């Protein structure tokens, strides 16, 4: 009787475990089917011309270079704005600030901001950057309506605010993972606070900080919702570039006051709002493949960094 019951239980147990396995591998299968579909449909469109040409013929032919350029420009400015600010303020919070109720409230709200919908950040960008800062600058500088309208700089700034909590949280985590004993040893040797941070804490936390930062960047580069009304354009004949002149010497620079094309927005607009979505389907798949490759490269780099980071921590 006992043996029989045990056998029955074992049957339930093994089938439950198999069910979990099946659920997991159907998930992996779905991922591969999804990626396989995008790759198989998109690879035919990818060519040198597709990457480096302008859209032609009302966007039904030609390439997506302006969209790739816009994505990189926006992401670069976002990195410049968000990463130093995020990393430095995390260093302040973790190394300098005292553990008070106040600093705990700040930590909690930063944590929770990382989960606030991206579209809400878009609203903030519109209300704060464009209407408050932009219109304010126009009033003060008497420039008419130059800054107070959707533009590359405001989209980058909004994405920067969006990824700022993510950068801060991941930096805090990697700073936290440096053992206190290492800091104490450094103080014991007579090092000052900054020397300890610079020579002991940061070298150990660096791979972790990099991982979090790269993940945040990939999140920003793939985000579409907040930039819908912050300057992403359907089609622009020119790149958002102007010559920056010092005397007679001119160099082409990203002009942050202009509107821009954006890869993720390009996919959205072609799929939903173009005049002939079926005709542009190859371009949509091609753009999707480019975007996926871009974000996956970033993510894989981050995963490798973290793998090394954890391995190094395991050795301590």
């Amino acid at each position: 009787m006992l043996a029989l019951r045990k056998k029955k239980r074992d049957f339930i147990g093994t089938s439950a475990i198999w069910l979990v396995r099946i659920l997991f591998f159907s998930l992996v299968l779905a991922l591969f089917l999804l990626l396989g579909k995008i790759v198989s449909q998109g690879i035919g469109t990818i060519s040198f011309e597709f990457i480096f040409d302008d859209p032609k013929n009302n966007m039904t032919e030609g390439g997506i270079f302006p969209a790739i350029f816009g994505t990189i420009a926006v992401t670069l400015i976002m990195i410049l704005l968000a990463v130093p600010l995020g990393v430095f303020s995390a260093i302040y919070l973790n190394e300098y600030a005292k553990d008070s109720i106040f600093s705990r409230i700040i930590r909690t709200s930063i944590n929770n901001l990382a989960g606030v919908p991206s579209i809400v950040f878009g609203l903030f960008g519109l209300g704060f950057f464009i209407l408050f800062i932009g219109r304010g600058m126009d009033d003060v500088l008497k420039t008419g309506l130059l800054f107070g309208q959707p533009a590359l700089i405001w989209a980058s700034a909004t994405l920067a605010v969006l990824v700022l909590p993510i950068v801060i949280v991941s930096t805090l985590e990697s700073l936290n993972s440096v053992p206190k004993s290492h800091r104490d040893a450094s103080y014991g040797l007579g090092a000052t606070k900054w020397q300890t941070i610079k020579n002991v804490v940061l070298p150990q936390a660096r791979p972790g900080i990099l991982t979090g930062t790269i993940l945040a960047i990939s999140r920003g580069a793939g985000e579409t919702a907040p930039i819908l009304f912050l300057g992403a354009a359907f089609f622009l004949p020119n790149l958002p570039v102007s010559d920056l002149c010092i005397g007679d010497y001119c160099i082409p620079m990203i002009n942050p006051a202009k509107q821009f094309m954006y890869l993720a927005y390009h996919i959205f607009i072609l799929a939903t709002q173009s005049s002939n979505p079926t005709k542009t389907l190859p371009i949509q798949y091609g753009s999707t493949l480019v975007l996926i490759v871009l974000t996956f490269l970033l993510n894989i780099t981050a995963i490798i960094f973290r793998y090394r980071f954890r391995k190094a921590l395991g050795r301590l």
Partner: protein
Amino acid sequence: MSEQEKEFYSRSKDSKYGKRIKKFTRTKESLIKFFFAVNGVMALIFIILIFIFLFKEGFKALEHIGLLDFISTNRIGTDGSSQTVYEWYPTSTEPRYSLIPLILGTLLTAIPATLISTLFGVAAGIYLSEIANPKWKEFLKPMIELFAGIPTVVLGFIMLVIGASFFNDLLHPDNRLNAFVASIGLSFVIIPVIASLTEDALHSIPNDLRMASYGLGATKWQTISKVILPAAFSGVSASIILGFGRAIGETMIVLMASGNAANITTNIFLSVRTMTATIAAEMGEVSQGSDHYYSLFFIGIVLFTITFILNLIAELIINKMRKKNTF
């Protein structure tokens, strides 16, 4: 100045080694601290500004429209009879701002998505933490994370061009783009969230518990279902709450795949319109300073508040769990 520093500097004044720490070093140290503090304060200011600007613009909606009008509107028909309607029709000559259809639409996409994702996500978490061969795990876990890195516009696009037709042929829904298609797309975003947090929660259960269970003669499944899952219950439920919050806040997938018709319905095979998709679709065309404009900010406040509270609950649960699990 921390205790360590105080001690350090007080000692440095009278010891012969301390004289080496010149005034220059001390000034440099405080300048560096000041630099980091400025950055911290700036980040803090941005965070406070988000609250201020969102609520400032959103509360103007309450002045212009009124809280009750966000629930229902009284319409006077041609025959003079008054009728209570629940409609989102902000561009009409008699604008109606009821949030009821939008909230229903949000729930009708977010709840099925969370249910599907709970099944797959928790299963994936259990598999990765308890069942998978550790060698395989090192390869499989990053794959789930890659899943999480797919931009949502890509998932929306796939649901629009492939998913909608697939489910149209399979289930013959009332509308080709509907809440069900959107919730399948949403699950792709939420499954990785639930899976990785569940895996973390299960992984943090001390191995002693597993060994004790095996020692009592329990099978692997008995250990998982009667020991590990109950012990990690709070962590797993926190992951589901966070997943639900993501489902409510996701924009691109529902914008592309839900059909965007503000129906009042509980039928999952009808087109619906969510709060996020409403902001995304209408903000571009609205004139700044109009009632419609402020009402979109009000939707933003509602979204912000819901997700902030959900995240807060999840964080409290996780913090409690961490305290409990320090054996």
